[in-house]
């Protein structure tokens, strides 16, 4: 409370619970007038939940929201818009077949004798847009213009209607460099007018270019609130990926690294990930590190056949194999626990029992059903081994907490007795207890001689279980760390080195 400036928007103690998870835990966000404020964090850190709580799309479960010092409780996005909080999303949510002017004034058209006055509306639109340095014909349909112009129209509409706080949710994701420049010039003008702007992106260089302050979220908590002039890129990455657990995780990494099991050569897919090569040995955990969008998930999906590569080859125990579909991969003893548990992992309405047996049964084929007694035995074994907490094996899996769902998915794959296990963000969105158990399990599987490839945004975690770490940036493999090189510091260094091409001043 030492800040002399009264914030335009001040969110305090915001919490939001979803069944089984805490999406936001006592989050604070201060937006000063004339400030561009970055909201940073990995996927699932709570950025979008926070935004939804601010705009009234979600009702917060605890906390206060102050606008110009007065408490507000917007019940909907329309209500928050009226109060002065406007939002522009990555996918422009305007009506493409209406004209620019109509989009700007939809629902608040200037009237004349009960009818819309088109002439006045177009004139007003022209004037408004000129204020943003945009000289376009407002009578043209919106689709006649580029995404960047559409963004600016959306911003103009939001500012016009709200005028205090502007939230930009990944506005630059689909823009090229010149378009980003146009957008930034608009943001600077708005900043000069005294608006408070929240800027969400995963392009760090853009954050350093345009933003004044940043609030960094991780696992639903605020882990940093700082002026960007005072911190380095590396410190920001450290906060995003976390390292405060560093002291207490250190793996013994016993057991020996065996023969190469899977050898990937020049595997790649245009527009998705640059060709890469990777050897994974028996009794080894290869960690995949990198920021969001660096290509971690893409690497995992490509090896597993979830996405078809357009070049490269895979060898298993020295022999070439063809993997076109996940089915091929499973047949070769591969397994993948995907990042998006809900849409790619669990089969929600099926029981935990069926979910655990699914991959094994799919591999055996429908003609050879696994007897029910055997199914129960397998499911029971893994429920006990992994300490999955549930009412009964017949419970639909969607009713389980995130951590227990993840363990059931691990059980699904362990039941197939895989030689090669790929885990994509195995600990995302699960509670601390399950978190530690999964890390211990990874270590044990490695010690038992399994080959593992683990993609994670949690650095301490990677350091804890990896025998090797491959660092990715912008869909390119940039380096490989082994042995003592594997520390959170070296990983962050590797990620932060050699700034992003976008970082050049525009």
């Amino acid at each position, binding site marked *: 409370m030492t800040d002399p400036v009264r914030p335009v928007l001040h969110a305090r*103690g915001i919490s939001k*619970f979803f*069944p089984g998870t805490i999406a936001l835990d006592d989050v604070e966000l201060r937006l000063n007038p004339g400030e561009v404020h970055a909201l940073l964090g990995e996927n699932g850190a709570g950025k979008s939940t926070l935004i939804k709580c601010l705009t009234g799309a979600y*009702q*917060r*479960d*605890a*906390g*206060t929201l*102050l606008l110009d010092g007065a*408490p507000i*409780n917007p019940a909907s996005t329309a209500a928050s818009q009226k109060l002065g909080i406007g939002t522009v999303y990555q996918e422009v949510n305007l009506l493409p077949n209406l004209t620019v002017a109509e989009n700007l004034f939809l629902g608040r058209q200037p009237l004349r004798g009960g009818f819309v006055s088109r002439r006045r509306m177009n004139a007003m639109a022209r004037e408004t847009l000129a204020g943003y340095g945009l000289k376009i014909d407002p009578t043209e349909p919106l689709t006649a213009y580029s995404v960047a112009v559409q963004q600016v129209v959306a911003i103009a509409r939001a500012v016009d209607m709200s005028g205090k706080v502007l939230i930009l949710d990944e506005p630059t994701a689909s823009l090229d460099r010149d378009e980003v420049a146009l957008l930034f010039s608009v943001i600077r003008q708005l900043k000069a007018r005294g608006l408070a702007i929240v800027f969400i992106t995963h392009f760090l260089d853009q954050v350093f270019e345009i933003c004044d302050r940043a609030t960094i979220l991780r696992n639903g908590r605020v882990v940093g609130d700082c002026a960007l002039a005072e911190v380095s890129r590396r410190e920001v990455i450290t906060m995003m990926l976390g390292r405060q657990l560093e002291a207490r995780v250190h793996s013994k990494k016993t057991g020996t690294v065996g023969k190469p099991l899977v050898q990937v050569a020049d595997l790649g897919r245009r527009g998705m990930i640059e060709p890469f090569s990777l050897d994974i040995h028996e009794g080894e955990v290869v960690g995949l590190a990198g920021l969001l969008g660096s290509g971690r998930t893409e690497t995992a999906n490509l090896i*597993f056949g*979830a996405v078809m590569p357009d070049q490269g080859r895979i060898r298993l125990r020295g022999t070439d194999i063809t993997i076109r*579909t*996940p*089915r091929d*991969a*499973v*047949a070769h003893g591969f397994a*993948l626990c*995907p990042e998006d548990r809900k*849409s*790619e*992992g*669990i*089969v*929600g*309405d*099926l*029981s935990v*029992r*069926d979910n655990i*047996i*699914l*991959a094994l*049964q*799919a*591999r*055996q*084929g*429908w*003609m*050879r*059903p*696994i007897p*029910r007694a055997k199914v129960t035995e397998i499911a029971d074994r893994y429920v006990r081994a992994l300490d999955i907490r549930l*009412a009964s094996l017949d419970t639909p899996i969607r*009713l389980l907490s995130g951590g227990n769902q993840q363990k059931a998915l691990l059980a*699904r794959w362990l039941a197939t007795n895989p030689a090669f296990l790929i885990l994509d963000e195995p600990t995302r969105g699960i509670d601390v207890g399950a978190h530690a158990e999964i890390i211990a399990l990874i270590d044990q599987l490695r010690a038992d001689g399994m080959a593992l490839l683990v993609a994670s945004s949690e650095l301490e975690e990677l350091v804890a279980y990896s025998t090797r770490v491959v660092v990715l940036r912008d869909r390119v493999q940039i380096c490989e760390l082994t042995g003592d090189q594997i520390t959170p510091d070296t990983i962050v260094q590797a990620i932060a080195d050699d700034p992003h091409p976008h970082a050049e001043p525009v």
Partner: protein
Amino acid sequence: MPGPKSAILRRIAPQLVILAIALLLNVLIFPDFFHIDFRNGRLFGNLIDVLNRGAPVALLCIGMTLVIATRGIDLSVGTVMAVAGAVAASMVVEGHGWGTALLAALLAGGMCGLWNGVLVAVLRIQPIVATLVLMVAGRGIAQLITEGRILTFMNEGLIHLGAGTVLGMPTPILIWVTLGAVAITLVRRTALGMLIEAIGINERSSRLAGINSRVLLICVYLVSGLCAALAGVIVAADIKGADANNAGLWLELDAILAVVIGGNSLLGGRFSILASLLGAMIIQSINSVILLSGLPPEFNLVIKALLILAILVIQSPRIGYLLYMLRAAGPQPQPRPGTADTLPKRKKEAAR
């Protein structure tokens, strides 16, 4: 999963109750409803009629249940019936035996199913659109085969499939009961049922778990086509003629309705063929009420609509959801609503 008997019973209990009510309505209107005697070498009675006349929809709903379990729908079954009936009739008219005619009809139905399956599973066309193509085109094909008239035939073997009896029991009843039993056994004694359910609930997860979803999808449409073909042959055999204009007309809707009355979600996932078959019998019992009531035909659709509306209201998801919430809400800690938490703080804020 082939659960304990009590689980199956719990699943089909609503359908059994509704069927009992529907049959009771019949008895109220026509006290001799359950009377069955043996006449002209066949079982003769209203109950037999319900089972016999329900055969086409029962056969259709076996395939339809599987298709709907994969989050699909097959609008073409009525038309496929007409095509299969026309093929069978034209075969026997040209002098082939009834076995050949039946095989040809099944082949035609299988081809139709395969076509739907490829459109849905390979070309990824929305099932409702993909099967609509055949629904529209198929009747034209059937009319081309019969040249637009009722193709009458006298082949005893073929006629036996629709109008004959085995040990006094009408053949269509035996066919649908047998096929239903085979289908239920097949999906529950093998892993087929679970894999189909998995695809219907979350296809992406299922694919990543190594399920060959494309082949399975094609298969369910194939099965639906085969069931429709068999239903089409029975309907044609029943009247000793293939009526391309009217055979199977709107029956796809009855089949979908039977699946829904069977408590299966149109959004796919968990399914019960047994419950769908009961649904088919419920629909036929309602038809029986209408016919036995002796009311003028202007009332037919009104009565049917009202009875079905009543059934659907009883089974409505809202009521099911309420029950589910009552059960599920217990152990889960419910987050408190925002206002309750923020109000005291707001007071503090104001006091400052």
